[in-house]
Every structure is written in C-alpha cells, then in structure tokens.
C-alpha cells in the first residue's frame, strides 16, 4: 500500500485529530472528574469512590496525551517545535500541573493523615483543571494566530509574551475546554458511582451541559463577527517538500467560516457539539448514564472537530507574518516518515483499542462507599 505525499499529509491531519480526540475522550474524563472532585465528593470515602473509578485507567489514558505529543513531533515537527517553544510558559504550566496527577493518584492513599489526603486532593484538582483550561487557551490563540516567524534556516522565534496569550477570546476558549472536560468527567462519575456522589455528578452534568452550549455558541458568534481568520492566497504543490516559506497567506475576516460555506457537510462538527451537549443533559436527567457518557464524548468530538474544520488547512497561523503560518501541507515530515508512521498507526491503534476495551471491561463496576469500606487496603 503506497500513498502519495499529498494523501499522506492529509491522512496525518486526520490522525493527529484522532489522537487529540482520543486524548480528550479518555484522559479528558479523568481530568474533568479530578477538577470536579471537591464538588462531587465531600468526605474522604466519597473522594476515594471517585478516584477509584479512575484508578486502573488514568495512566493508560494519559498515554493518549503523550502519544499525541509524540505523533506531533514525528508527523508535524515544525508545529511541535514552534508551538512548544513559542508557548513556553503555557507548556510549562501544563507540565507542572500534570506532575500532580501520577503522584496525586498514587500517593494519596499511602497515608491516613487527613492533611496529607487533602493536599493530594487539591493536587488532583490542579492536575485536572489547569491542563484542561490551558489547552483551550492554546486553541483560542491558534484561532487568532500566534506571533512567530522563521529565519532563513527555518528557526522559529516567538515575539509575544505569556500574558498576551490570556486575551478574552482565548480565555473563553479555555472555559469551553474546561467545561467540556468537566461535563465529560461528570457523566463518567455518574456512570461509575452510586448514591450521593452519583446524584451530585448528575446535577453538575446537567448544568455543565447548558454552560457548554452557551459558551460554545458565544465563541461561535464571536469568531464569526470579530476574529480574523487566515486564508491561503497561493500555495506551491501540495505534494511538494514541506517548506512553510513558499506560500502566501493573509489575514481575512470571516475566513474561519469559509470552509463551512464551501463544504456544508463540515457543519456536522458544531452540530455534534450541540447535540452531544443536549443529549448528555437529557440522558443524565432520565438516568441513562451510559448514553449520557457517550453523548458527552460526542460533544467533545464535535468541539474539537469544529476548531479543526474552521482552521483547515491551517494548523498554527502566524499573526506576525501570515505567510510563515504552518499548514498541514508545509508542516509535515517527509513522505518516508509519514509512511512509516502510517503503518505504525495501522498496526498499533487497533491493538491498543482492543486491549484498552478489555481492561475497562475487566474493571467495570459501579463503585460506592461500601466498596471502599470493604477493601480498605487494596485501593487508592
């Protein structure tokens, strides 16, 4: 099976999207659930209920994030290089927040002292909420363009400050991202716990679904009315060597809606986001917890696809020199590497999905306070 370079580039735009969505659906629910920890669980036993729904899975979930990062490095090295160095403090913030998770999960139950456990509870909240917020802020900035440029040897340099990332539109995107993962976490908790914890998660899920729809709608209107998008004026051959300095691109108002006009089928993305959120709320209300979780996963998928479809084929526009923007056509690695990576994905992704489902099935049960009390020493 041999693909031409242009097809491979497009395939990796899709595959990076799949990995991001995979990350948001799996790691997203445990980040969301951790962010909601103090709201859904008041006592130590209740918190252990919530934590133990995730205990066997959080580490595997996190690998979606790590692999998405690795795939970005391999498939879009220019994006990995420019985004991680440009958004230095945002990345460090995510990193230091993520530090809290493995130790929070693993060390919390090692001692009985309430101060010790309380401290780790807050570490888990930070480890869940901060990355969720910052990822949204990062996407908010990508939609507006990032002030970076290249020199003649293709070395990227960033010319903004950390605080310029915290602009109102980006903050709104941060709130959307946090809300969406919190909703997803709430439907997870509702599905896997019992009694009071389940009820609190249910009431939160309903409210978060409404909040997600509202913020997502506001962002859509804002994007349509006053966020300038980017547009390619001239592009060398799509199947040519990846060099971001050869094309011409400009800022243009309304450009991010252009794809939806050309390909109305792409409207499915924002529709999925709304339908998923509504369904998550309704199914929570009628206590169809499994369907509610699937619905929040649908909403997550819709939101991420909306960002991707709006920007296509841009990945990281440059607000400084729009022609230096990174697109899927000129930020990719070589045809040979994309081919190797495609094979790796074809072979391993189905295997990973297979054993991940097996693991979830093996550990599947509703957990309540009684379960914690019956197993005081073998749980988190």
């Amino acid at each position, binding site marked *: 099976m041999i693909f031409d370079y242009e097809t491979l580039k497009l395939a990796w735009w899709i595959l990076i999207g799949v990995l991001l969505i995979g990350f948001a659906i799996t790691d997203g629910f445990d980040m969301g659930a951790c962010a909601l920890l103090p709201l859904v669980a008041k006592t130590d036993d209740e918190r252990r209920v919530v934590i133990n729904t995730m205990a066997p*899975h959080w580490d595997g979930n996190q690998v979606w994030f790590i692999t998405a990062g690795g795939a970005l490095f391999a498939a879009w090295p220019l994006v990995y*290089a*420019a985004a991680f160095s440009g958004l230095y403090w945002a*990345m460090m913030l995510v990193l230091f927040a993520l*530090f809290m998770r493995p*130790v929070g999960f693993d060390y919390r139950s090692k001692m009985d002292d309430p101060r010790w456990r309380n401290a780790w509870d807050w570490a888990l909240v930070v480890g869940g909420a901060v990355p969720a917020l910052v990822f949204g802020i990062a996407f908010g900035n990508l939609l507006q363009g990032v002030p970076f440029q290249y020199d003649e040897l293709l070395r990227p340099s960033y010319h903004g400050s950390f605080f310029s990332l915290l602009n109102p539109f980006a903050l709104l995107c941060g709130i959307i991202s946090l809300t969406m993962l919190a909703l997803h976490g709430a439907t997870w908790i509702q599905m896997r716990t019992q009694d009071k914890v389940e009820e609190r998660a249910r009431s939160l899920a309903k409210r978060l679904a409404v909040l997600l729809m509202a913020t997502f709608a506001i962002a859509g209107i804002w994007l349509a009315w006053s966020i300038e998008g980017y547009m390619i004026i001239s592009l060398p051959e799509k199947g040519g060597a990846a060099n971001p300095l050869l094309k011409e691109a400009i800022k243009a108002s309304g450009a991010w809606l252009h794809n939806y006009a050309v390909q109305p089928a792409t409207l499915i993305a924002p529709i999925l986001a709304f339908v998923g959120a509504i369904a998550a709320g309704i199914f929570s209300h009628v206590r169809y917890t499994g369907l509610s979780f699937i619905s929040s996963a649908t909403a997550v998928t819709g939101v991420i696809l909306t960002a991707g479809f709006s920007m296509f084929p841009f990945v990281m526009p440059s607000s400084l020199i729009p022609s230096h923007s990174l697109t899927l056509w000129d930020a990719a690695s070589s045809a040979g590497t994309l081919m*190797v990576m495609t094979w790796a994905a074809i072979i391993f992704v189905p295997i990973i999905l297979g054993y*991940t489902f097996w693991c979830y099935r093996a550990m599947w049960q509703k957990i309540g306070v009684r379960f914690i009390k019956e197993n005081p020493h073998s749980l988190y």
Partner: protein
Amino acid sequence: MITEEVVDLSRLQFALTAMYHFLFVPLTIGLAFMLAIMESVYVMTGKQIYKDMTKFWGKLFGINFALGVTTGLTMEFQFGTNWSYYSHYVGDVFGAALAIEGLMAFFLESTFVGLFFFGWDRLSKVKHLMVTWLVALGSNFSALWILVANGWMQHPVGAEFNYETMRMEMTSFMDLVMNPVAQVKFVHTVSAGYVTAAIFVLSISAYFMLRGRDLAFARRSFAIASAFGLAASLSVILLGDESGYELGDVQKTKLAAIEAEWETHPAPASFTLFGIPNSETMTTDYAIKIPYALGLIATRSTTEEVKGIKDLIDEHEIRIRNGMKAYELLQTLRSGQTDAFTRAEFDRYKQDLGYGLLLKRYTEKVIDATDVQIQQAARDTIPPVGPLFWAFRIMVAAGFWMLLLFAVCFYYTAKRTAWQKPWLLKAALFTLPVPWIASEAGWFVAEFGRQPWAVGEILPTFTAVSVLTANQILSSLILFLVFYTVLAIIEIYLMQRFIRIGPSSLHTGRYHFEQAGATSSSTRVRA
C-alpha cells in the same frame, strides 16, 4: 538571540531533568521483570508467599513508577520547549522513534499497570500473570525505542539532509532500528535496569534479615535477586556498550576522551587503568597502563588502532573547512539557485555541514570564520577529558563491585548459608545506592561524551536550542529544582516508610508487625 548563557542553561535543565528521570527508570524496567518472575513462581507453585512478594515489591514498584511517569512527561515536552531547532532539524527521524515508543510501549505498560495493582480480585491467576508480563514487556519496549532514538543521536544512520526543508529526513527505517549503537545501548541499559532492581531487592531483603524478621519472605526475595542479579550484571559487563565505540566519529572521539588517549598508538592500544588527564598539556600524569587491553576492548582485534585525540582534532579541522563550503553551497541553494552543478557540489560536502555549523558559536555567518576560530571549533570537538575519564571508571568499578557481590551472594544462597553471614548482608545493604551511581555515571559518559554535538556530526548542541531568553530558562530551571526536590523528599519518605514496615504493609496478618506481641505504630499505616 542565542547566547552561551542560553545554551548552558538549556543544557543544565535538560541534564538535570533527564538524570533525575533516570533515577526511576532503571528500577521500573528491572523490577517489572522481577515481579513477573515472582508471580510466575506463584502461579506455578501456588505458594501464597510468592504472591505476597509480588504484591509487596509491587507496592514499592508503584511508588517508584509514579515518579517515573511524572518526570517522563518533562522529557516529552522539553525537546519542543527548549530544543526547538533540534526538534525541527531531526524530528523527522527522532520524533518517529518517540511516537512509535508511545504506540508500542507506553500504551502497553500504562494500560496494564493499573490492572496489575487493582486486578488481583477481578482477574484469574493466569490472566493477572499475563498482565504483569505485559507491563514488563512494555517497559522494556520503551527502553528499546528511546535507545533507538538516543543511538541515532550518537551515530546517525538511515537519514539524509534535505536542503529544501532544512532538516534531516529518514531514508531507511530499518537502518534506524538496526543501528548497532542503538542495539548495544539497549542491551546494556536494560541489563543495567535488571541489576538496579536486583540490588534493590537484595539489599532490602538483607535489611529484613539483619533485623531478623519476615525471614521466609526475605530469603526467597534474596535468592531470586542474587540469581537474577548475577545473570544481569554479567550481561551488563560482557555486553557493555564499548562494542559500539568503534562506530562513527563521535563514538571514536568519546572513546579517546574516556581513555585519555591523546596520541594514536600502534595497535593494540593499552588501557589506562588510572591516571590524571591533563587537558592543557594533552598528557595523562601518573598513568598506570594495561598493555593491549584497550585495543582488545574497543576494536575486538589486535591489529586495528585506536585513534588519539590530537589526530582527531586534525581530522576535524579539515572537516570544519569542508563544512564551511557546504554551508556556503547551502545558502546558494536556499537562495533559489538549484542547478545540477550546485546540487552535486553540495552533495559532495554535505556530510561535513554539521562541522561547519560548529562555527556558529563564533560567527553567525560561518563562511567568514578566521583560522583561529576554526582551530578553536576543532578543539571544541573533543569533550572535556577529565570528567569522562573519571565517570567511566566510576561506572566500571561499580559494575564489577556489584558482579562480585552477586556472585558471593549467589554462592552462599546456593549453600543455604547466606542469611547466617551478617557481613554479607551488610555489604548488600550498603550497596543500595551503587547501581544508581553506575547508571548516572553511564549516562553522563554517553551524553556528555557526545558533546559538542546534539546529533553526532550533524547538529551542534549550540545550534539546537530554542530562541528563549536566559531568564525564561533560569526561571523554569528553578521551578524544576523546587518541584523535583519536593517530589524526591516525598518519594524517599514513602519508600523508607514502606520498607521499614515490610510485607506487613499488605495487611495479610501473616507478617512481623501483625503477629501477636508485635507493637508498632507502623501497623496503623494503610496501604
């Protein structure tokens, strides 16, 4: 603007976070394997004590694993945040190895590790055993891929520079994977991991025996550790990655520096057992030499010579001058003049382009370098000899010490008298830090010895950094120091706490602190 300060701080931050990460990795790799062995014995014999062993050492494994995961995140971020030109320049090759590591190894290890801890009551015996083996397999796979990536930095094969994209691009995935440097590194590093875990189990078991408690548990652990450790330490030493030192210019230079081999001597070269290398005079004072040994170790022959530092510098000066031509041709190509002649000329010189880039440290334009700058850059190609000379000897001495310890422990274990020999148990206990000293010294040799290159002969470290200010890196470096110190304190506290309680922490009622008469506040600890 890239300054020396930015480069030094970036290197310091990377070295600190990578070496800190590697405090946890070898124990994970080795202990996962030992847990799988212990559990296999449990499944085959049905003896509960082996299940308890798997669970107790698994508990310590978990404490260590959490920090391995935590600090591993930093590594994933840092290539992009602090080494963005590196990421751009070699992501096509290096990134692929990392991504496959994620797909093939991390998913396996991390998905099943949760079932290892929480699946005891929900899986059948055999299924749980399979889960444990998959965790061990996953952690060993991850070592394979990260060492394929690292081996490529030492000896870049299967890739070629493309002037259109200004980066290295993969030409052969098979060459990348089959890189002999990567292969020897893999075997050496995972064996070192097994040794680390074996010492860990050996030494803590010795502690229980010295305290005279949980003897049945401790003796069995001690026996497994001494057998596993003996095999592993033989493997580390016999398959030491010296065999990789004949490959590639950077490895040759590293070898010369490790051995303080200033001159090229006729084959076979002698091995300097001890001495004080002097970089000023380029001699080694008070040298004690073993004839023939170096030639045999490094080239596996008595006829091939081991090249000395002075000759290497002369060779590198020529390559730097060729590199200037390559750089000039590259600029011509990038300006759009891509006729057949220019391309052919560039192809002639491009294997020396990296050497040309060494001059970036002294002159931005490269092609206007003076003779003095060229000579300075040529001297830069030799990493500081003293630290490498000593770090290597520390590693080797630690390796032989552990081999000896395992051999003696194994001998007395086989005679069933090891537990009556307090001197042996004390020696085992005090050896606890030694594998970490050896691993860190080994990494120092491998990576410091690679300098001044980020990727050997291709990309100088100086050129590889991100465009950041010194203050940005200094601030993040301080934050890393603070976070990592706090995490280290917590980790060591938990480790020693559970080691002191021992298998009683499993709350089975079968062990020391839960037996009648034992009074200790430790039993209150929940695990």
